[in-house]
């Protein structure tokens, strides 16, 4: 079976400045939750955008299930960007219909169950909701897809600690065993327990690609501690 994600010599340069990503080689297998970690400006969001066909690589390739980003990859990748990306004027029920219309793997019932669990009114317009609730709605829509690769950019950055537990539980409960979750965040302590693997990125280069067990067993450290050591200012 092909890896779900492959980056081959992937580079991205904005204008004529330094490379946001520089000759990145990375392979992700299926069925794991992967933490994409690095300090600000390390290239995490650039990598995520390249996976989602929102940026054009300067050179190299990114392959999702063996194909370059395009219509086929978008059918199997469920993406949560770091900021609000939904049309504010739409009602939540309209957004659910929108996702169901465009994504064959969207499970409407799952979305309404999660909305109900969080007490979010499906008839409310998005613009009437708080920032945190909007982020929950986005995550619910993204996790209601039966995707093969979930790419979540800062999924818990804007919500209160109490909601984080529900969101992390939502992530764990709503992906199947063959799916992979690539999750970028600065809140390492909050997510450490759900991660199978971590990838450290520094200045566009791969600094570490290891399982959480390897880090704990071989280095005797938590991911958070190792992160602080590796990226000490």
């Amino acid at each position, binding site marked *: 079976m092909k890896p779900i994600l492959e980056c081959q010599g992937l580079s991205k340069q*904005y*204008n004529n400045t330094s490379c946001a990503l520089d000759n990145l080689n990375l392979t992700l297998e299926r069925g794991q939750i992967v933490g994409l970690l690095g300090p600000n400006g390390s290239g995490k969001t650039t990598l995520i*955008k390249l996976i*989602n*066909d*929102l*940026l*054009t690589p300067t050179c190299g390739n990114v392959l999702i299930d063996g194909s370059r980003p*395009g*219509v*086929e990859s*978008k*059918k199997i*990748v469920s*993406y949560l*960007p770091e*900021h*609000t*990306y*939904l*049309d504010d*004027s739409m009602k939540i029920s309209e957004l659910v219909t*929108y996702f169901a*219309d*465009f*994504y064959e793997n969207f499970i409407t019932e799952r979305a309404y169950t999660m909305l109900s669990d969080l007490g979010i009114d499906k008839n409310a317009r998005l613009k009437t909701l708080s920032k945190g609730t909007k982020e929950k709605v986005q995550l619910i829509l993204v996790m209601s897809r039966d995707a093969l690769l979930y790419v979540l950019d800062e999924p818990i950055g804007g919500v209160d600690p109490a909601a984080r537990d529900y969101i992390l539980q939502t992530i764990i409960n709503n992906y199947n065993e063959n799916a992979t979750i690539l999750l970028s965040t600065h809140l390492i302590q909050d997510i450490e327990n759900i991660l199978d693997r971590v990838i450290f990125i520094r200045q566009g280069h791969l600094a570490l690609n290891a399982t959480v067990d390897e880090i704990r067993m071989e280095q005797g450290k938590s991911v958070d501690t190792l992160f602080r050591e590796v990226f000490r200012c």
Partner: protein
Amino acid sequence: MLKKLIKYDLKSLSRFLIIIHVFLLLAAAAVRVFFTERFNLVKIEGGAYLALTFILFALLASGVSFATEILIAIRFYKNLFSNEGYLTHTLPATRKQHLAAKTIAGTFWLFIDQVLLLVSLFFVIATSDVVRLYSENKEAFLAELDLIGLDLSSAKIILFLLLFSLINAASSVIMIYASIVIGQRFQSHPILGAVISYLGISTVFAVISAAVLSAFGLFSMVFDESETAAGTLAANHVVSTLNISIILSIAAAVILYIITQGLMKRKLDLA
């Protein structure tokens, strides 16, 4: 997929455009009922009020048309290049489909806008007095406009206006989209870039149009008096100018569409 994209684009555009066009039609009805229908063409009293009413209505109609183009431009920019673009570009659709859907939806609404402008203008002007006077003096009226000799049935005029409006709507929409996509190349000032691109494209188009019309001897409205006696020279001049304008609009639209599609396909860099 294309049908779904068009459905959502039309839905989003219709939200405001229906409201402003209903307002336009209501304004036209009010002008007709309270001003033009009451105006006596024989006595010609209160001409100043009527002129002022026409000017205000023309301003309103221009405003509605401008607002339509602006709303189409905003939808295109917001849906593809703002935060909403993160969703739009991750839908399982090609960029060609996105552009096609937005071109169809935008053209549809700009065409509707132009048709409604003509309808409202006709509604305001064609009072019972005007219609009666026109039918009583049709030959003299056409002679004054040098339109005698042309086969101008109402159906032909309407068909021509609809075709002209459709082509004009499509080329205008494509020009707006091309400007926005080219504006994205100005990474720190994409909106300013779009405005500059629009002005640049419009200027180039105007210069090329003038050059082509001059080449065909159609740029000037000065006629040879001896030939004017034929009666149809001015009419033929207008028809030839419109025909060439249509061909130029189609050519510009095709070229700009190809450029826009190419830029969207190869150069998308969502900030």
